[in-house]
């Protein structure tokens, strides 16, 4: 039967050719190029000299790269706790029948996730601004004006401060994903458990979480992948500073390659980012699989 709809091979080939060329050209060719140039000493000019694995040895000892990697992990953890955790709590509240204007919460809450990270970065830069920022204005309002400071210059707080916009931006997104997962649970289960005397917390722990586990794991995967590539809003807010206190991997690779014109080492960093991100993403996938098979 299938042969009736099977077109000639050259027709299939013709249809597949352009998309695959596009895709291979923009994804695999750059990867190969990076792998190739990572073995060269190349400062962006016409001169390239082969220097073997020297770039990689430098990378292994490059404390800034590892610090950036740590910051990516920080963002991942902050996002899993802040985004998925808060989103889950908000969803429980929305589902508790106590809350009015559910549609508005959905529409407004989701809104920030549709805005460019660059704009989000700008908005929060204005919030953190020393003289004209909303945060210091608020501190003055509650009579705590002496706590005001140049927020994004604070080495100890800067990672927390740049992760707040990121977490805030995507809460609504995860909220809607979790909401739609819960709405597919049979209502009878809740009614029966209520009759059995289960309270809201027990329902959440013993009914909702096990039943939407797969959705929650999808959320974790999205969180990990999304935060390993953090770049835009940190570029806008701090450019990785003060010092390297809010540097992330993609931004570091960018700085080395373009600000310092060190394309050879920049390529090695790109390969490093590739491997590090892949390991973290694959590692989470592995844990996710393990968790879902256990239960």
């Amino acid at each position, binding site marked *: 039967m299938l042969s009736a709809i099977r077109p000639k091979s050259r027709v299939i080939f013709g249809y597949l050719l352009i998309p695959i060329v596009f895709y291979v050209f923009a*994804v695999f060719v750059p990867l190969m190029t990076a792998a190739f140039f990572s073995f060269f000493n190349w400062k962006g000019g016409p001169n390239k000299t082969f220097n073997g694995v020297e770039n990689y040895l430098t990378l292994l000892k490059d404390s800034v790269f590892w610090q950036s990697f740590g910051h990516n992990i920080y963002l991942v953890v902050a996002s899993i706790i802040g985004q998925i955790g808060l989103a889950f709590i908000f969803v429980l509240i929305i589902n508790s029948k106590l809350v009015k204007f559910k549609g508005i919460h959905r529409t407004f809450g989701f809104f920030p996730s549709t805005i460019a990270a660059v704009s989000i970065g*700008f*908005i929060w830069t204005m919030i953190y601004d020393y003289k004209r*920022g909303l945060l210091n*204005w608020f501190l003055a309002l509650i009579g705590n004006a002496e706590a005001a400071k140049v927020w994004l210059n604070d080495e100890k707080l800067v990672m927390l401060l740049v992760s707040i916009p990121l977490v805030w931006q995507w809460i609504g997104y995860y909220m809607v994903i979790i909401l739609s997962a819960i709405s597919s649970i049979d209502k009878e289960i809740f009614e029966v458990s209520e009759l059995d005397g289960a309270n809201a917390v027990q329902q959440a722990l013993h009914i909702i979480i096990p039943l939407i586990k797969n959705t929650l794991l999808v959320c974790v995967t999205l969180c990990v992948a999304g935060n390993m590539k953090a770049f835009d809003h940190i570029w806008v807010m701090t450019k990785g500073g003060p010092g390297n206190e809010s540097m992330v991997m993609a931004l570091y690779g960018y700085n080395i390659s373009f600000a310092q014109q060190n394309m050879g080492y920049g390529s090695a960093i790109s390969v490093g980012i590739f491997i590090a991100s892949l390991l973290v993403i694959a590692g989470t996938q592995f844990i996710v699989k393990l968790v879902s098979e256990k239960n």
Partner: protein
Amino acid sequence: MANEYTRVAGKKSSSFTNNPILFIFFNGMLMIFSLSCIFPLIWMFYSSLKEKRVFNADIIGLPKDPTMSNYVNVLTNKDYHIFESVLNSFRTTIISLVLIVLFGFIVGYILARIEFPGNRLIYAIFLMGVLIPIHSLLVPIYVVFNSLDIANKWYTLIIPYVSFALPIAVFLVEGYVKSIPISMEEAAAIDGSSFTRTLFSIIGPMCKPILATVAIIQTFSCWNEFSFALVLIKDVGLQTVPLAMTQFTGQFTSDYPKIMAAMLITMMPIVIFYFIFSRQIIEGMVAGAVKG
């Protein structure tokens, strides 16, 4: 026994749902969150109607005599290229979307339906694309594009945007096509419809819902994409919206109302799009995320 038990439990849950303190606390918490999501937009809107001097004196108050001067300034000053950047973003986004939907549809359909040697290999190649950390391509893509002299052109950004979106588009379409009964195509083939005709006039319309989902997700990622635009576009006349915003980081950091006016102009198309189609957009994004 059982009766008593249910009654007690019923009482408990009703006292829970009628608790006024919880009611206020829960509603208040969600209100604060929802307001925080929308307040920046409102704050930027009315602040953009203030002059810099007025804004610096009072950052939160409503403007006493609203002025359009920031908007006039941003739009008429040729150095900012704000209007051009909106056009560039429109062009890049629309062409990318058309190609993503077209390519995603064709590849997804062929991989789902037609057996040929290499089908699974191509599938695996696209599967890898979902896992590849795209941001590690930032520097190498610049090297490749620059050496082929295709960086910094009007079409430059379309290439990575289409390529990066293809894996997810292919998967969504492939999964969707598998749920369509194959008898449609068989009937069409028996009636003498060519492959191309079946593909576009029979399968195409049936795939509309999933293609709409793909288009919605990618509208936002193309319009908002920043890092590859930053690396690949140097000419201010070619920059997209997120890139146009960054020119305000250094030189005008003190003139917030002007930055806000520029931001609102560049955000406007996507904000209007969102609030008109919010229900479809939310559903589409969620469907894409969960299935992808």
